């Protein structure tokens, strides 16, 4: 696991090996024998995370109801956080020296919530043209753009999401393009630079989009049809496969100069190598089936469909492919490809053995992701589907952690995981509950009772906006 080391190391060799650097291929090639000033761009650091864990005193939350996302709901349990990690969960725990004790009586504890689909920072408030940085809608394939190069850390939506209990989110390019560019997985924390927010070592994702959006945006130049969309993906991946092969050959032979660097193909070659995870905006069941076939044609897997309002119709195919579905609880009807949305979507996926995720795609919804999961849970139960609270908490924690390739580090309250922890005023599946304290990697990043722990962005200053304590 290189992930941790990436943040702290300064040595060139380690930086090159870091997954977040994502050069065309992480294994050393012939040209790496060169000295520092003769290195080519792809051999140098690639926008490395500078995230550092804040040092915090240990915390013990006592006598709470705990949804671990890795087992049954625990009553009267404690959660112990030290050095940014979960060190104990259960009814019989030791209190570390110097620990802050938090009374959890009548309260709930869950893992920090994870959103697989957010545009915070790339479509920042106040929502003018100046902050519209989410769609590089100049060409149907822009795999070369990286969302992190658009994210504005002073987006006033960030503190709002923090107050909703979000600790990690994937920030995606928009869905205008067939292939919209790389995503960034960030810790939802106040910061001056996106590098300080970037989750160290998180694999990149790539945003792909099916259906109405690309064919509408590129109507005049193409693609203008769904078959045109498919041809566009195929053409791009054929090019990427050739690019990958050319690099592999050069690495093996070491003859002459390396192939020219192509940022778009570099991203798609990363997909073909399994290093970059595919996140595919796709509403309709029949289109998801087409995209699963596309993945077979080029030998990659789709990590998660997004929006996927008709996922319930092909939940068997998704379960079989091991592809998650990041869905809304109840969005529907705002365009034709969302016309068949039903609130039992997540519950039907769960009961079919597919991996269900509740995502937001919305700076409002991200603040109430727990309530959205609750809507999906109770809609399923009302329809007689066997879904539980333990399932529903996984829809917004463990399952999105998996979709982001971080399931070994975050998403559950298990010993050794990062201390991404939310203390709720009550049942997180109630309309009335609020996140009271949010610990991000052990750092108390939000405390409803303490204005000193209610972050404000620069944009918030000197304005009527009341901040997030309310």
């Amino acid at each position, binding site marked *: 696991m290189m992930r941790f080391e990436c943040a702290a190391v300064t040595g060139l060799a380690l930086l090159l090996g870091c997954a977040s650097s994502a050069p065309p291929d992480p294994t050393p090639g012939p040209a790496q024998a060169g000295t520092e000033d003769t290195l080519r761009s792809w051999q140098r650091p690639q926008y490395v995370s500078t995230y550092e864990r804040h040092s915090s005193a240990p915390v013990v939350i006592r006598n709470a109801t705990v949804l671990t996302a890795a087992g049954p709901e625990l009553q009267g349990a404690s959660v112990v956080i030290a050095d940014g990690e979960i060190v104990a969960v259960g009814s019989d725990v030791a209190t570390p020296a110097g620990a802050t004790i938090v009374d959890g009586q009548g309260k709930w504890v869950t893992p920090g919530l994870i959103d697989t689909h957010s545009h915070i920072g790339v479509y920042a*408030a*106040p*929502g*003018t043209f100046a902050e519209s940085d989410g769609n590089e809608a100049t060409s149907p394939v822009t795999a070369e753009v990286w969302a992190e190069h658009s994210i504005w850390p002073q987006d*006033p*939506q960030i503190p*709002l999401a923090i107050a909703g209990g979000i600790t990690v989110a994937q920030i995606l390019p928009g869905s205008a393009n067939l292939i919209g560019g790389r995503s960034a997985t960030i810790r939802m924390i106040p910061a001056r630079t996106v590098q300080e927010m970037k989750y160290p070592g998180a694999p990149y994702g790539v945003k792909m989009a099916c259906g*109405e959006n690309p064919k509408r945006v590129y109507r005049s130049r193409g693609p203008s049809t769904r078959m045109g969309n498919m041809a566009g993906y195929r053409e791009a991946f054929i090019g990427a496969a050739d690019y990958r092969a050319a690099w592999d050959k050069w690495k093996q032979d070491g003859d002459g100069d390396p192939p020219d660097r192509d940022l778009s193909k570099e991203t798609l070659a990363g997909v073909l190598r399994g290093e970059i995870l595919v996140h595919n905006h796709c509403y309709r069941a029949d289109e998801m089936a087409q995209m699963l076939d596309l993945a077979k044609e080029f030998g990659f897997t789709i990590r998660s469909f997004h929006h996927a309002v008709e996922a*319930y*119709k092909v*939940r*068997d195919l998704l379960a079989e492919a091991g592809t998650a579905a990041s869905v*809304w*609880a*109840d*969005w*529907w*009807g*705002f*365009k*034709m490809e969302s*016309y*068949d*949305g*039903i*609130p*039992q979507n997540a519950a*039907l996926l769960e009961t*079919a053995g597919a991996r269900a995720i509740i995502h937001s795609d*919305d*700076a*409002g919804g991200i*603040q*109430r992701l727990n*309530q959205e999961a*609750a*809507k999906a849970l*109770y809609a399923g139960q*009302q*329809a007689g589907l066997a879904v539980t609270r333990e399932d529903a908490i996984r829809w917004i924690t463990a399952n999105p952690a998996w979709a982001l390739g971080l399931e070994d580090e975050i998403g559950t309250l298990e010993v050794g995981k990062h201390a991404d922890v939310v203390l709720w005023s009550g049942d997180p*599946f*109630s*309309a*009335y*509950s*609020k996140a009271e304290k949010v610990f991000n990697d052990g750092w108390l990043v939000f405390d409803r009772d303490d204005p000193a722990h209610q972050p404000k962005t620069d944009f918030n200053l000197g*304005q*009527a*906006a*009341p901040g997030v304590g*309310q």
Partner: protein
Amino acid sequence: MRCAPLGFALAAACIVALPLQAQTIAITGGMVHTVDGPAIEGGTVLIRGDSIVAVGRNVAVPDGATVIDARGKIVTPGLIHASSDLGLLEVGSISSTSERSSAGEVTPSFDVAEGINPASVRIPVARMEGVTSAVAVPSNGVLAGQASLVALDGDDLDTMLRHRKAAMVGDLGSDLQDYGGGSHAAGLGKLRQLFRDAQEYARRRADYQRRDMQDLSAPAAELEALLPMLRGEVPYYADANQARDIRNALRLAEEFDLQLIIRGGAEAWQVADELRAADVPVAVNAFANIPDFQSLGVRWDNATLLDSAGVTVVLYESETGGPRNLRYAAGHAVRNGMPWEHALRAVTRTPGELFGTTNGVGVLAPGRPADVVVWGGDPFEISTHADVVIIGGKETELRSRQTELLEKYRVLD
């Protein structure tokens, strides 16, 4: 009974229709929130035909009444959505399914009513979650047109209409700024001239018809349509979010003696004392809290602050999940500090009084239209579902296009 004098063939048809026409329903044993007085534990709501005839603890249930056992359940008036496009919009991105706007920025004569589609598949989805009436509002424009309060059940406009021309809708935010060529102040100047022209037109119709009058700022039909609002008979439902724009609305209302209702009101909490003093209600978009330059002070507890300052509050929502989320708008206000009973009033009685007719929907009381919902528990809680939804005395089927999709795909073949 009404069928008896008619011929045989017609009488046969009437027998089929009879149970719907004169049905008596008794909802018994529930916790009844009448929104017209204290809650009644173990109360009965008695419905005959389309109206409520009795509410109380000691109401006798007539023989032959259909009894709905509400023991352990909560009974409320049907919820009223105060800012809805139900029936006016089917699929968001398909303009041919939208009936919300008329061309132009000043179209007060535009009355949305005849555009309402009773067969909208969105209506049952909202109805299943206890929304029984909606104010169908036109969109876009300084004066966008006239809203109607409709029942969310019925085969045609006549059976759906609760109150036609229930409000004049207009935007005092960005549409007004555009109308003023880039300035709110200039837009207000034009709006005042328009109102004065309408008043002068009303005084001098004869001169107008003889063309013995200066040019007016809108055609006669538009000026005519403004007169009920200018006489204070129809509320002026004005979009205003920024505190400045809300104060402008208050000035305008005072000058022209308008019956103003603010919609949106993101920064209304900053103007709460003035709103209370002017007795101007605010319809709050409950989930709004993302700042833009019209609403830098937007906050989730806006409705709570207004309510506690004595301002009359309506709660609505504009979620992409649709108007079925209205009950969560009320729950969200409670989460952010509003007393539960006040939140219920803000989605029942208050919008009923502001947009309905005298003795209309919004409370459970004798003589009122029988819009009643029986809930399995707290209607604002996510775990709760509506068990029975009665509109105009008729129990609706809890069935929608979505439930049909669910059943079709419940088992994959």
